[in-house]
């Protein structure tokens, strides 16, 4: 009976296949990070704009000035060992660190700095606005960004801004310094090396890119000549694992050293497991529930105020999100200089009803709320739907993919929106512009700000935001942002709800991993596995 024998043989093969046991341990000199990395579009610092690419670029490239991820209050020297600002605040001179080299072995020269900053403006890709907001344009960068001497560069800003704002923006991703010789050598069709740098690297940071295979992995090799010393690990592998449950199994088995995208359930499951520790890092991303004032029915400020009392902030943070977020109600995240950590709003249905009644808001208000169809948005949405319902506001949740929700939001076609915002650089203006500035509400003047997208026109607050942007006294400047946060907290047609917290599971032997408040501040160079 040949077929039966064949079947038995197949069963034996199947059993053999499944019994090829392999020791599940990551190699000793390699750090394996299980993470969802499918957001990466490009690894060129002039184009990279996603969370994961930001983290990788930060570990490959140095910038003129940088943040210490453990002390973000102060800007620190990077490739520039010192800098001066002219009297009028418009010329910045940076003296480069001597002896700094790229991974290619080429020395870091003023020409590289000039090339790198000019190319961001010329390429004009997604993160370019961080530099073009200085007034730099493709046709003026040659005058604005110049080599001053063999060790110095000067950057000129057409308008006057607070020096701290300029330095904070230069410490962001597009301020990364690229090896001009390597980029130029690999340029095609005048792309300044963009296509090549999207999947290769030419930096002076602690790591160099070995390979990026979309949807599979990013492998970083140690750069022994890194400016701030060679990293401890020979290699960092960011392994693409989209499913949190799979990440959990990998960290439990020792196949991964760090699991980055565990949900509340997975964190609860691994936190007491021997050999695994869970660390929590406050993040800069802020979640909010907003109302679009393009709709007449939502224009009454009483509705904005009432909805702030119809969110169960503590219940959602503690019960549903289990530590993955904390309550935060102002527009600048806790832990950043100038942040206001006041959370005056609590769930108070009676008060909300009272506010609505006093303002004669007609009963039966219905709000369609768009949200991304995955946790934590679904959890937050369902809770808000229930608590708003207690005050007679009917919330219809409209789940969609991230791209779908953002498309609708950009076109201002939503009524209510559950979304988040992460600052583009670590200066309060990054969020003040988004939450406290809108002088043109026209459909023909689209902005990516929360104010414009929710049609909140605020000339007075906008003037104050502009004033803070140019204030040269750092202490006074931060006070101005504190006032703005308090005003927006009271007046805005949105409820700022939560600040994200990254809960990361690490094997016990992993030491020295730093996860700052933004992806730009995820640092692998000090990691050891002993």
């Amino acid at each position, binding site marked *: 009976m040949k077929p039966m024998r064949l079947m038995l043989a197949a069963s034996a093969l199947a059993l053999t*296949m499944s019994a090829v046991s392999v020791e599940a341990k*990551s190699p000793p000199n*390699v750090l394996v990070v299980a993470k969802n990395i499918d957001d990466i*579009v490009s690894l060129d610092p002039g184009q990279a704009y996603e969370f994961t690419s930001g983290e990788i670029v930060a570990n490959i490239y140095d910038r003129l000035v940088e943040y210490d991820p453990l002390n973000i209050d102060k800007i620190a020297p990077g490739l520039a060992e010192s800098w001066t600002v002219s009297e009028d605040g418009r010329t910045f001179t940076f003296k480069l660190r001597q002896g700094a080299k790229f991974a290619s072995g080429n020395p870091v020269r003023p020409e590289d700095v000039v090339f790198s900053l000019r190319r961001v403006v010329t390429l004009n890709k997604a993160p370019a606005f961080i530099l073009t907001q200085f007034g730099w344009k493709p046709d003026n960068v040659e005058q604005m960004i110049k080599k001053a001497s063999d060790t110095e560069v000067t950057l000129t800003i057409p308008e006057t801004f607070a020096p701290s704002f300029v330095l904070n923006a230069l410490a962001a991703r597009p301020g990364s310094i690229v090896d001009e010789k390597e980029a130029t050598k690999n340029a095609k069709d005048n792309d300044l090396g963009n296509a090549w740098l999207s*999947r290769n690297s030419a930096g002076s940071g602690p790591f160099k890119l070995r390979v990026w295979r979309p*949807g599979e992995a990013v492998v970083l090799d140690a750069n022994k000549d890194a400016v701030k010393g060679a990293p401890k690990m020979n290699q960092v592998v960011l392994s*693409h694992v989209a499913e949190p449950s799979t990440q959990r199994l990998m960290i439990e*088995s020792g*196949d991964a050293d760090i699991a980055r995208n565990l949900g509340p359930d997975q964190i609860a499951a691994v936190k007491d497991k021997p050999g695994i520790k869970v660390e929590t890092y406050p993040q800069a991303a802020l979640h909010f529930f907003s109302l679009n004032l393009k709709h007449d029915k939502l224009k009454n400020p009483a509705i904005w105020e009432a909805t702030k009392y119809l969110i169960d902030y503590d219940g959602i943070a503690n019960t549903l999100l289990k530590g993955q977020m904390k309550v935060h109600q102002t527009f600048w995240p806790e832990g950043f200089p100038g942040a206001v950590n006041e959370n005056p709003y609590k769930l108070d249905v009676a008060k909300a009803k009272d506010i609505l009644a006093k303002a004669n808001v007609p009963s039966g208000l219905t709000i369609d709320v768009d949200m991304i169809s995955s946790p934590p948005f679904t959890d937050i949405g369902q809770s808000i739907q229930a608590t708003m319902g207690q005050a007679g506001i009917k919330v219809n949740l409209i789940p969609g993919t991230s791209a779908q929700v953002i498309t609708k939001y950009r076109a201002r076609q939503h009524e209510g929106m559950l979304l988040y915002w992460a600052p583009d650089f670590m200066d309060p203006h990054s969020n003040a512009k988004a939450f406290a500035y809108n002088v043109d509400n026209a459909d023909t003047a*689209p902005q990516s700000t929360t104010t414009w997208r929710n049609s909140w026109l605020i000339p007075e607050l906008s003037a104050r935001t502009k004033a803070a942007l140019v204030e040269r006294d750092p202490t006074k400047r931060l006070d101005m942002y504190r006032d703005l946060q308090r005003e927006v907290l009271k007046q805005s047609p949105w409820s700022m709800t939560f600040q994200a917290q990254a809960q990361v599971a690490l094997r016990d032997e992993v030491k020295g991993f730093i996860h700052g408040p933004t992806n730009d501040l995820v640092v692998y160079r000090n990691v050891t596995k002993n």
Partner: protein
Amino acid sequence: MRGLVLGGVMAARGFAALLITLVGLLLVTFVVGRVMPIDPVVAAVGDKASAETYAKAREALGLDQPVWIQFGRYIGGVARGDLGQSSLSNRPVSEDIARVFPATVELSTLGILVGIILGVPLGVFAAHRRNRWPDQIIRSVSLLGYSTPVFWLGLIGLLIFYAQLGWSGGPGRIDTAYRYSVEEWSGLMLVDTLYSGDWDAFRSALSHIALPALLLGYFSLAYIARMTRGFMIEELSKEYVTTARLKGASEADVLWRHALPNVLVPVITVIALAYAQLLEGTVLTETVFAWPGLGLYITNSLFSADMPAVLGGTLVVGVCFVLLNKISEILYPILDPRTRSR
């Protein structure tokens, strides 16, 4: 000579039908992509890009042109072998597909082999023992395979065989230690590790593919066994089977030499369909096992309205379906002389 001409005409007709099928498939996919409420430019340049950057990217993606021109340009490109550029991975679609498709082919082929080798005999056996306990068990196992969510079964499989018992490798195609140390030759990890002569790497690759392949094999098995059982029950009720038994043929001969060859044509069709479904990519299996295959690629691209990538993936799936159909058609007359044309 006349036969040769006739053959040529038939081949030309077949080729024309293939072209029409593929263009139709692309057209439908293209239209669906354009009516989706997702802005592909946002997916490409990010949410906060300036109006100027947005406009530039829109133009670069060709979205400022009327839809029919966009489609015409796309088809023109395909005819020249250019599948376009993925806005999500920033790479040529053909390069992306060359990367993800071998992973899917490798997994699907092993899966379907397990499905065929176990599924056909089980189906025959179940038909032979119709409504008795072996049949009940096989039907229950098939039903379970057919109705259990693959996502759940995959996670349970990983939990038991990878995390608890350590019998199988974990997610991904190979252990980190061997990742990128083996030179890529075919894109099929088992073949490449064998070709390089690195036995440890081969062992690692085998341990990684075992669990997802067995899982997919189980799902194919469920389908193939169920269908084979049905075909065989009908065949076993025919008079020639009774005659064979009366003439003293053994049960094994009746089943395997008389009845089974007569149902091979529909069984081959079922196998071809099952294989085509696996080649389409099994998104959930690929997600759970972190398997960088075609299904996940098409799905992620679709969610970001990365239409060149979606269309490229669809084209590959379409070609697979057509090719498998053709192979089935070629196999019919070989397996069953009654289907040979005169």
